[in-house]
């Protein structure tokens, strides 16, 4: 077999230009597949980060039933115990307690419905990116209980700027009585997300709890893990530990099911691209090998005439196919590395574009994984060998006299 491999390599390198063109054509297909895979992973990561880091968190804890009803009265049982446990859990990087209720925000110019959030600024900054999104003012830098941070769109609706007064009206939990309090706009954020920029307002947690009359009650605790992948690990002890006492801990995958569905669909897109690559490989390999076969028909005839068994010719063609596959894989890997390196330097700017219910907040970078440079090239090699079976069979079964008709 080694002789046939040696002979195959020499034959493949005999017509360097043709081999290079075929190798580049197939290699481009492989490079596209690797790059696309890296881009999809990068896009998924950015989408998840945009969704979770912006405000959602990588996981949330609620009282069971809260997610469906959004009833402010459905508060987490034993919130202080949960916060204490979360502060020492090895998988948890940060936990932000939140008190949430729907209300009205009123300025001298206008009135608007708003989701009021009571937060601990330091904890919230560790989980979400509200503090990074501040465009005017600051994110609760002082200690005034009258500070309120609103979105840019809401500020426009209310015609309110920094320092302006607004009034929050909510329905107190339990009694249902209206509860009002005046605040002064201390910060305006901008996320390019309509729902957040136009419909949310942040105040300090104790103030919100007092306004809602919930004591130290919390409707939500947002979690940031030490590693994002923990959010997808169903067997992580976290889920069991914090789904107790009538509470439930859920990951972003449950909170944003549409995002997960989209990611599953990208798997199908990847398969389609791989299929297209397979088509390119089929035609590339078959075309190249048959050109080579018919160009060297006499040689094959001579090889058979002098005693080479059909299996020998079969092995030779298969080895040529494998050699071409190896060259194509090397070209593809090199091209993929170059493209990936360039795009990882520049990034792709999709910031502000909505995707599956979330809005990209960061530059998009392709993610390089070792498997992309092992599985895909090896797959290409294997497939090349499979495709090579056809010309190899033709070569091994051809009539010797037809092959050397012009010779003997």
């Amino acid at each position: 077999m080694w002789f046939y491999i040696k002979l195959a390599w020499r034959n493949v390198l005999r017509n360097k230009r043709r081999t290079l063109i075929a190798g580049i054509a197939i290699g481009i297909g492989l490079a596209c597949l690797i790059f696309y895979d890296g881009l999809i992973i990068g896009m998924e990561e950015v989408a998840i980060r945009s969704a979770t880091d912006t405000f959602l968190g990588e996981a949330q804890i609620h009282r069971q039933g809260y997610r469906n009803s959004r009833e402010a009265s459905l508060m987490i049982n034993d919130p202080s115990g949960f916060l204490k446990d979360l502060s020492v859990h090895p998988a948890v990087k940060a936990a932000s307690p939140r008190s949430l209720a729907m209300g009205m925000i009123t300025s001298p110019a206008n009135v608007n419905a708003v989701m009021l959030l009571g937060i601990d600024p330091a904890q919230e900054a560790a989980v979400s990116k509200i503090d990074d999104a501040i465009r005017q003012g600051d994110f609760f830098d002082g200690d005034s209980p009258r500070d309120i941070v609103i979105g840019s769109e809401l500020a426009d609706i209310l015609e309110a700027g920094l320092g302006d007064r607004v009034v929050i009206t909510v329905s107190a939990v339990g009694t249902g009585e209206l509860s009002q309090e005046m605040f002064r706009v201390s910060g305006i954020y901008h996320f390019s997300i309509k729902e957040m920029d136009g419909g949310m307002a942040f105040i300090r947690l104790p103030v919100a709890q007092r306004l809602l009359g919930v004591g130290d009650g919390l409707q939500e605790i947002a979690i940031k893990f030490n590693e994002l992948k923990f959010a997808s690990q169903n067997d992580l002890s976290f889920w069991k530990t914090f789904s107790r006492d009538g509470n439930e801990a859920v990951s972003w995958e449950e909170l944003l099911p549409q995002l997960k569905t989209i990611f599953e669909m990208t798997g199908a897109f990847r398969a389609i691209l791989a299929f297209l690559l397979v088509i390119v490989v089929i035609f590339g390999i078959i075309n190249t090998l048959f050109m080579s076969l018919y160009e060297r028909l006499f040689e094959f005839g001579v090889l058979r005439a002098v005693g080479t068994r059909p299996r020998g010719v079969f092995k030779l063609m298969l080895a040529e196919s494998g050699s071409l596959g190896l060259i194509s894989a090397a070209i593809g890997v090199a091209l993929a590395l170059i493209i990936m390196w360039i795009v990882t330097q520049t990034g792709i700017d999709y910031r502000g574009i909505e995707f599956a219910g979330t809005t990209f907040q960061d530059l998009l970078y392709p993610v390089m994984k070792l498997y992309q440079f092992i599985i895909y090239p090896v797959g290409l090699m294997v497939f090349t060998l499979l495709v090579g079976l056809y010309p190899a069979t033709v070569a091994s079964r051809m009539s010797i006299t037809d092959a050397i008709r012009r010779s003997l």
Partner: protein
Amino acid sequence: MKQKETIIVTEDLSKTYRDNGVEVPALRGVDLTVSAGEFTAVVGPSGSGKTTLLNLVSGLDNPSSGTVTLKGTAISEMSGKELSDFRRDHIGFIFQAYNLIPVLTVEENVEYIMMLQGVKKEERHRRVMDILRQVGLEEMVDRVPPKLSGGQQQRVAIARAMVSQPDLILADEPTANLDSETGANLLNMMRDLNRDTGMAFLFSTHDQMVMQKATRVITLRDGKITEDLKRD
């Protein structure tokens, strides 16, 4: 002793081709016996059946009827694999257009058949150097065919055909692509090797020089042997 051994026997050998539904007889009932040591030329006009005869004798093609027996073995009854092995061990080929493998060196081209036979590397090298010395190419072992002249390439082809010491060498117009001086030199060399080794040579040719050197001249016309001249 080897010179008297019967190498090929054909009995009532016929071959008919089909061309666009029309049957074209290429060989009609040829009876032929070739013995070891013969230096036989098969002559005749184009289309007389020379190439068809060589193809059938070597087992490259199957007869429409009749038999070919090579050293007592009926080759028409062999499987493809058996035929490959039989050709490898008993028949050497010299083609008109040399047909060496251009990516292999002279040594690799010549040793190829021995490699198929499973001869060990050292033995292969020794025999390759011996035969290349005989054809005057011992200095060219590492060259590839495209770096050789036409005459040199044909000498490599002769070395390749003879190195495994087959019983029969089949040559199709071996001098057709060479100038007359080179052709004459090659012919003399083959005749010398034929005398030294006792291998039977069977040529198809139009070349008068080949006919003059041949110990036997078989004339084919319209697929039949019309003349069979033997001389010492």
